[in-house]
């Protein structure tokens, strides 16, 4: 199904935006991912993903306040759209289906 296309990093970004709820903008998302997943995120990679998600209408954005440490530039806050939520649910449910489809034996073998 091509219906809801969501890459791994994109899914992480979406989830993080969800976690941050009202406070999801570039720097906060980056920090949240870095601290939770212990992995470095470059501004470029993050912005590319955000733009792509916005183009797919999984996220919407609005301009927020400008602070002095941002040299007067506005923050761009992100929010999950209904379509984005559906995409995430779809992604989760397909994973769950796959998980539940793995026979128990497979795990046991692995443990041995």
């Amino acid at each position, binding site marked *: 199904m091509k219906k809801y296309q969501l890459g791994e990093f994109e899914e992480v970004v979406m989830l993080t935006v969800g976690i941050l709820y009202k406070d999801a*903008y*570039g*720097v906060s998302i*980056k920090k949240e991912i870095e601290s939770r997943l212990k992995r470095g995120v*470059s*501004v*470029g*990679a993050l*912005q*590319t993903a955000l*733009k*792509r998600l916005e183009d797919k209408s999984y996220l919407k954005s609005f*301009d927020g306040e*400008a*602070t*002095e*440490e*941002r*040299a007067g*530039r*506005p*923050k*761009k806050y992100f929010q999950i759209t209904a379509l984005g939520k559906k995409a995430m649910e779809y992604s989760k449910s397909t994973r769950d289906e796959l998980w539940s489809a793995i026979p128990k034996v497979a795990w046991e073998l692995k443990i041995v």
Partner: protein
Amino acid sequence: MKKHKTIPPQFILRFFRWFCHPKLKDSIEGDLMELYQERKVVSGKLKADLKFVRDVLLLFRPSIIRPAEGYKNLNNYGMLKSYFKIGWRSLVKQKMYSAIKIGGFALGIAACLLITLYIKDELIYDKHYTKGKNLYRVLGVIKEGNGLDKNIFFPAPMSNALKEDYPEVLKAGRYNASELFGAGNNEVRSGDQLENAYDQGFVYFDQELADMLELPFIHGSAKRALEEPNFVVLTKRKADKYFPNQNPVGKTIIVDNKTDKPYTIGGVIADFKTTSHIQFDFLIGTKGLAFWKDEQSDWGASNYAVYVQLNEGANVTELEKKMSKGILEKYFIPMMIEGGMSVADAHKFIDERGARLELQPIDRIHLYSAGVHDGLTHGDIRFVWLFAAIAGLILVIAIINFINLSTAKSANRAKEVGLRKVVGSMRSSIVQQFLTESVLFSVLSFVVGIVLAFFLLPYFNILSAKSLVFPWSEWLLLPIIFGASLMIGLLAGVYPSFYLSSFQPIQVLKGAISKGSKGSPLRSALVVFQFTTSVVLIVGTIIIYQQMEFILNKKIGFEKDQVLMIQGAGTLGDQATSFKNELLKTSQIKSVTISDYLPIRGTKRNQNEFWNDGKKSQDNAIAAQIWKVDHDYIPTLEMKVVDGRNFQRDLATDSSAIIVNQSMAKEIGGEVIGKRIEGYQDKYTIIGIVEDFHYESMKENIQPLCFTLGNSPSIISLKVNSQNMSEVIESTTAVWKKFAPHQPIRFAFLDDSYAAIYADVQRMGRIFTCFAVFAIVVACLGLFALSAFMIEQRAKEIGIRLVMGASLKNIFNLLTLDFIKLVVASIVIAVPLAWYAMQQWLQDFAYRIDITWQVFAVAGLVAVLIALFTISYQSVRAGLVNPVKSLRSE
């Protein structure tokens, strides 16, 4: 907050600002700055700088970089789409107005298209020769009275003389279409058949002329087909008629039953293009031809049209001068001297009459031959201009309708414009919006117009006597149509769009403009223009018809009704008289006459010269026609003998008697009866004067003419007693079959043939009528919509008036008076214009009607009535409506 702020490396930042997508730039730069400040505090400036550089470099990726073609929408597709949508909605919302707008426009476009096709066809005449710009027709010009006489016929040796004497002349060729020598119309059959058919388009044609015109040969040799004596070349359609499905080269045809002199077919050519001024079907070669002894070297008779092909780059005006002098001096003056003139007189004659030769470019023959006597039917550049003007006028009327309706409807769009301005639309975009709308209308109208023109084309062809086809295959058609629809759309939309976009939002939204559409002076002017044009066209139509009536019903000097003609009677030969006697046994036939000539076109004509007896070498000749007739000619055609008597059977001396018409009597002068005159060979005594009758078009004065007795049966005319023509035709055919079993009888009615002389005038009248109707319909459509709209605007006023006790009549007067004033104004303007134009047209006729005031009264009345009728529907409706309906909304 820190007062002093460290900043990241400027050139990196600038680099980032340069490449980053403008929509993302601010927020990402904010993120970068925030991170930078934090990192600087945590790990120092250097590390923060490095990380900053790294981040910027990693941002340098396709989705972040600004697109090369620009980030904004460079076009306004979105907006245009919206304009179209709004335009379409307002079109659909007001079905009647839209239908009138588009319908009127489409009518105008269809008329224009048809006329354009017509004009195009006229303009491409004789443009298809590869050597076209070197081909000329030779004209002989001589002063004649106040005007110039232009003649194209020259003596037989003319073409060779031109070629030999002037090195500029590369080729020279002739044709001879004179009926005296058997060209024109003849009975013809293929050599192995017995049944004759009557056919047209015989001509004597030089091989060299065929070369010059590059006649496209289908069969036979293009170089040799006319080079043998008694060879003939047929066009494809005639070859198919007489020799279906075969190659006729080498076969024979027999013309006019002359079995001793069959013509051998030398070749078949494609039919002449419809856009060629030369239209023949049987080209007879001139090799070995001589109509009398030494005819081919005789400078005394002019029967040949001469065409020349000049060298590349020859100086035409120089050559004309050289030729005029050289040819006249070398050939014509010696001939005049031989004819009895003194040397001095001959030179004087040439000088006084300004005789000269001219070269007429072949592609100008069709349109620029007014006043040239060449026996061909051709167009007239004045008509091309006239048609172009009419097309332009109709288009202008249609555009005016469009403008009028658009501005009149402005009140309905005013609020829209106001609101658009309030939410930030610039004037230019509103202009753009309305232009888009008018282009939409124009394109729709073009589509409808083209379809209309396509279906009207067959009728137009009948009307204009052309065979136009719609040029679908022309690759230029689509771009031209598209360009034209765009241009006309813009043209028609300019004024409305600027007018509409000038509204002040505050006033509009307050509701002040909605009454502003009551009477704009411009709109009135446009209505006046439309009706002026219509009135001029109505006057033109009436006058053309009056002139036509005048021509057909004028006392023409003979009785053309109830006369039946049998053509091709030459076949009967000596039996003609017994045929005549046989016919006279029928009670329905009053009288019968055998003759060569009738006062209609398509019978034979000649030109002779006469002198008073014994004055041949002294006096100027009187040019006149001799018609050979029989004793019954004058009674049968009911001509009037004003002096002297008709021929009498019992007087043997009448064989050298002559009857002249009044014009000729005037030329001879003095007491005419009993006078003796001489022609080339014979001498005659004048025994009678017949009243002048019209035998050529009424565009010319009646020329001298005389009758002598003679037996040359070509046409037999029957004066019929009975009303039952079909019975007469039946009995006559039965008699004919006895005498000429192998030839179908050919009938014509004299009055029909007479009317055919004026076919062009009639055609002109019909075309005028059509376009007048076009113009009036379009103007009325406009007036109808305009009045409907005005009434809509004044609905409340009318409601109040009705409540206060106004009658239907009051309301009607109130509403129609304004428009009627405009129509009356147009009549005032139109009358002098129409008078002047029609006066010019009537100048063409030597016999014409006077323009009377009644014509203008009728035209004016028609215009007022049509206008009144158009408006009254709406006015009466407005007066009958229940006032509650219009007042309720308050």
